[in-house]
C-alpha cells in the first residue's frame, strides 16, 4: 500500500469543520479542540497531528448499524 500523501490545508479545514464531535471520546474531543484552536491561529500541524486527524476522519466514516 502506498504511504498516504500529507493532508492539504483544505482537507484539514474540511476535517476540523466536519468531524462529528458527539462521536468522539473524551480524549479525542480534547485533541480535536486543541488542534482546531492551534490550526485557526497558526495553520500548521505536525505530521503526527495530521495522521491522528486522518485516522479519526476514517473511523467516523465507517458504516455502522
Amino acid at each position, binding site marked *: 500500500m502506498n504511504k*498516504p500523501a500529507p493532508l492539504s490545508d*483544505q*482537507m484539514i479545514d474540511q476535517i476540523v469543520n466536519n468531524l462529528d464531535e458527539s462521536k468522539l471520546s473524551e480524549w479525542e474531543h480534547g485533541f480535536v479542540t486543541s488542534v482546531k484552536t492551534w490550526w485557526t491561529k497558526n495553520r500548521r500541524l505536525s505530521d503526527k497531528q495530521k495522521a491522528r486527524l486522518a485516522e479519526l476522519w*476514517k473511523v467516523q*466514516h465507517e*458504516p455502522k448499524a
Partner: protein
Amino acid sequence: MGEGSNEGKTLGLGRDGTHLAARVGDRFLYRFAERLLTMATLNSKPTTYNNNAKIELTRESAILEARLIPITAEMNHYPLRVNKSTWERHLKAAQENADFLREFCCYLADDDYFRPNSTADCAKAVFANRGIEPKKLSKVTKKPLTDKDTLAELASNGDNLAGAIIDARSAISRFGQLKAWKGFAEQGFVQTSWDPLGTPHGRYASASPSLTNRIDPIRDTIEADEGYSFLSIDNSQSEYVVWASLSGDLTLSEAFLAGKDFHTETARLIKATVPSWEPREEDERQGGKTINFALLYLMQVQTLARKLACSVEVANKIVKVYQARAEIATSYIQQVLALAKQTGYVETYFGRRRYCEEYQQLNGSREVHEVQKTLWNHVCAGSSAELVKQKQLKTWVTLRQSGLTAQDVRVAINEFDEILLHVRDSVLEEVTSLATKIWETPEKGFLPFRVGVKSAKTWGGCAK
C-alpha cells in the same frame, strides 16, 4: 396565514390526492390532504414501489419530504410554456437527420429496405452478409445481438456500418420523441405531475409527461413566460463528491478540494499507470468518466472493457489501479453492502431506508451483483438527490422569507442534480445572488460541491 393567502401557493402533490385537490382548486380539500400526507410522511411505514422496492423514511428524510410539500405543490400548479415554432424547427431538422442516416445505412448495407431498428436486419447486414461471426447471441432467440455495446465495439474497430446504425437509431429515437411532443407544442404548454417520492432512491419523478432525460431539442421548446427567465443551478459531479464525502476517502476528497476536473484527472492517472490503455486524446476525458462511473456503480470488468474498447486484461489492470488509489472509497462500498447483509437494509445519508431481505437470501449469482448495484445506487444517488432537495428547500424558504412570491420566483423543474427556477427578470439578479450563496455553502458532513449557475430564456438554453 390568511384564508385567501393560500390561493395559488399550497397546491398539489402527485400520488396522494393533493394534486387532484389542487387541480380542482379546492383549498380546503387540499389542506386536508396535505395534513394527512404530512402525518403519513412523518409516521411513515414502508412503502412498496412498482419494482418491489420497500422504502421507509426515517430520521431527517421524513422531515425533509414533509417540508417539500408546498414546493412540489407550486411545481404542480404552474404549467410550463412550450414554443410551437421552436418545436416545428427541431422536428424538421430531426426528420431530415433521421432520413439521411437511415439512407446512409441502406447504402452501407447495400440494401434499400434496411431498417436500422430491426435486430434481424442488423444481424444480417453486420454479421451474416459479411461472414463475421457474431460476438454474442441472445439467450432467448439464439440470434446475434446487435445492441449498442456490441455495435460500439465493432465501430471502434473501424466498422462504418455499425457506427452508422448507432447514429441512425439515435436519430430515429430523437425524431420519435419530438413527434410525440406534438400535443404539448400545439396546446402551447405542458403541465407535468411532480412527485418527490416517485422513485425508490429519492429523486423527483415527473409523469404525464415525464420531463426527465428529455433531449435538448425538447428542452429548447420549453420557455419561460414573457418577462421571466429560467435560472438553472446544479451540483457538478454530485455523486462522486457524495461518494468521497460518505467514505471519507482522503485521495478522492483532496482531488475535489483541489478543484480539478475529476474525470480528466482519472484518465491521466490511469494512462500514466496503465500504458496499455491508449485512449485517443479527444476521448480521454470521456474514458475517465466511464472509468469513474464504472467503479462508482460496480460495473463488471467485462462491461468496462467493452465500454472502453479495450481487452478484459487491460480493464482489470485499470480497476486494480483505481481501487488502490481510492482504497477507502472502494472498501466503503463493500462495507455498506456487508452491513446491508447483516441488517437487511441500506440507508441514504438522511435516512431514506431501502429494505433488502432478498439480498440476505441470495448467494453467489449474477442476481447478487444486480442487487448490490441497486443497493449502492440507493445510498449514493439517493444521498445526492437528498442534498439537492435540501438545497432546493433552503433556496425556496430563503426566497419566500425575503418577500418574493411564487409570482416572482418558483421552482419549475427538479432533475437529478439540477433545479430550474422560473424567475421574473426584474428580480433575476437578486435571486441569482441568493440562490448561488445557498448552493455554494458546504453542507455539514460533505465536501463542497462545484456549483453551476446559468440563466436563459429556455430550459435548453441553460445547458448551452
